[in-house]
């Protein structure tokens, strides 16, 4: 039996404590699974610390822990999500991501085949994004002390000197743009949750948005705010921005892109799509005069076809996000209290 066969038999088995023990099993796992799929010149050196070339501009760093159930869902898995999520966080500062680091926490007993599937999906997402995984780490915890796999990724990027994008920069009169439909990710996840199962063709929108951001920033360096509405959905993110910028907002419900199936799933479960998570959407706040140009750039991008202007920043010392309803009234779009639970009444 040669070394390669050993690795194959490992992949048919489960993660055990030796995979985090620092011995040969760990070295095999790193070589045959992580290094093999994520290979690039910097990672291949096999150092704990990666060295990146000096870059003009300012360094942007962001880190994100990923825990999700189920690990595999329509439109992605925890691996692709861990790449997209962190690239987007770096991009929302107006930066160009240049490298990712990754930390795995594996639970004893987790199938190696599933781990390989996750690592391959991660590698694929990183390759498509053109951003290498430059270093990483693996730990194993005893059974019952983890939930299969947790992944933490850190992204490093570079922002041009003339870009100053920040959640506190929104000003009354500015336009609020959204890159596409809301709630796709959350509904895709819920459709696979135990006890809720329903059939839908909705897939997670998990996607990297840094190339869209690069085109936007190049055309309009004066963008005030960029942010991705992930957990808590559009409502939570707009409320965050309103509070940081000390402004109000008036949204137009009819302009917010929403797929009919997402709307239907939300009606069935008693959820409000404004609070449902997205993983491949961005909110952009800009001067009114720049709105059309930015919308054009967003719509030309593969992940921005449904981009729309959904509202306007207003002056409001209460920092309220309000919405003109499609019905003709107005309502406050508040923060979400706790987790949104499916309801019967």
């Amino acid at each position, binding site marked *: 039996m040669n070394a390669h066969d050993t690795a194959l038999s490992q992949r048919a088995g489960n993660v055990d404590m030796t995979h985090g023990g620092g011995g040969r099993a760990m070295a095999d796992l790193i070589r045959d699974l992580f290094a093999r799929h994520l290979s690039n010149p910097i990672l291949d050196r096999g150092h704990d610390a990666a060295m990146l070339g000096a870059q003009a501009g300012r360094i942007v760093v962001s880190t994100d822990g990923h825990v999700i159930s189920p690990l595999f869902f329509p439109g992605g898995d925890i691996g692709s999500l861990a790449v997209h999520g962190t690239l987007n966080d770096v991009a929302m500062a107006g930066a160009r991501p240049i490298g990712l680091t990754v930390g795995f926490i594996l639970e004893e007993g987790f199938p190696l085949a599933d781990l390989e599937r996750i690592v391959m999906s991660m590698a694929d997402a990183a390759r498509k994004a053109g951003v290498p995984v430059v270093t990483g780490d693996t730990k194993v915890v005893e059974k019952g002390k983890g939930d299969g796999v947790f992944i933490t990724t850190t992204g490093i990027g570079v922002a041009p000197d003339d870009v100053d994008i920040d959640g506190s920069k929104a000003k009354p009169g500015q336009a609020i743009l959204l890159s596409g439909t809301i709630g796709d990710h959350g509904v895709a996840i819920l459709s696979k949750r135990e006890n809720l199962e329903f059939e839908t063709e909705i897939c997670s929108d998990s996607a990297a948005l840094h190339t869209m951001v690069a085109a936007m920033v190049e055309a309009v360096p004066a963008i005030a705010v960029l942010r991705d509405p992930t957990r808590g959905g559009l409502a939570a993110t707009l409320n965050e921005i309103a509070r940081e910028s000390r402004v109000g907002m008036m949204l137009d419900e009819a302009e917010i892109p929403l797929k009919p199936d997402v709307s239907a799933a939300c009606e069935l479960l008693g959820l409000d799509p404004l609070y449902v998570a997205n993983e491949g959407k961005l909110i952009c706040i800009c001067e009114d005069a720049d709105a059309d140009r930015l919308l054009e750039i967003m719509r030309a991008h593969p992940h921005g076809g449904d981009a729309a202007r959904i509202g306007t920043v207003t002056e409001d010392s209460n920092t309220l996000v309000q919405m003109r309803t499609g019905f*003709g009234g*107005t*309502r406050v779009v508040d923060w979400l209290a706790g987790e949104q*639970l499916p309801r019967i009444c």
Partner: protein
Amino acid sequence: MKYVQEYRARDLAQKLAAAIAREADTGRDYHFMEFCGGHTHAIFRYGVQDLMPENVRFVHGPGCPVCVLPVRRLDDAVEIAERHNVILCSYGDMMRVPGTKQRSLIRAKADGADIRMVYSTMDALKIARDNPDRQVVFFAIGFETTTPPTAVAIRKAQADGLDNFSVFCNHVLTPAAIQHILESPEVRDLGTVKIDGFLGPSHVSSVIGSEPYEFFAEEFRKPVVIAGFEPLDVMQSVLMLIRQVNEGRNEVENEYTRVVTREGNLKAQELVSDVFELRQDFEWRGLGMVPYSALQIREAYAAFDAEKRFAVSEKASREVKSCECPAILRGVKKPTDCKLFGTVCTPDNPMGSCMVSSEGACAAYWTYGRFRADAPAKAKKEVAA
């Protein structure tokens, strides 16, 4: 979404708003109680109040099953889960409601109790089938709408010999609660709560029919319009109520004819009466003890009655002092009349049930309209624009 989207149409809303404004007598006020939280939710979510003239007001009623469940029953559910080590299945709505000392199902779960959220009684049956070595208790709450699915589950458990499944029954009856409100001194004698008519329950009525309300119209001389939960249904029903008031009529009218008939769903009624019988007394949060206002599991199905299977201790359950939920549920006070509202009590840290349920008057006020009172003129102007 057929039969949904049509009833949220903006152009019809404008037409109905014009009709209501035209027909409402400017020389008087109209106070209509919407019994159901579903109506409360629609009114706030779609901004229906914005489309009403100043003199047409909604009085929020007690029709939220989460809000009316007394703390004691919730404490009992937590005790069943913790002391008897069962799997307790609950609808999502109950999870965050605070019991005595702010203990909710979510907190009990964090402390180690096996509490699972389900969407349907069928899910609870499945959990029982999948865990034959554990006792599984379904925490049943709700009005006549939610009761038939519980009855089906109990019959199914009996048919399948699923003896590790039982139900902690808290099902309550809508007509009994409406009668209690109409007979309360605030409405009848003191006039503290002015009610000129009722928006009648929509989905409850799909099961029980419109007939049970005929007694109220006659006995208490109040118009009732059974109203759908979509915003146009609410507006059309308000128009029908205004016409009854203007013409001095006190009738039961049905706006929600696409789902509600006079006799209701007879098959569902039969299933319910096969499994359940009236309870002599049941405590409602806000209303106190209301005779014959709730259901209990019949002797023939006693094996599936969690109250008979699991003993609970006598306990001093109590609500947070100065929480006005009880008065708010009766329509005597508005959420903004409560000292705790928006200060100690917020959706992030609810003190009472009305702040937890998305149908609770306090949560609706907080989420959709808490600054409305400060700036009604401004809100109106924006709608007009």
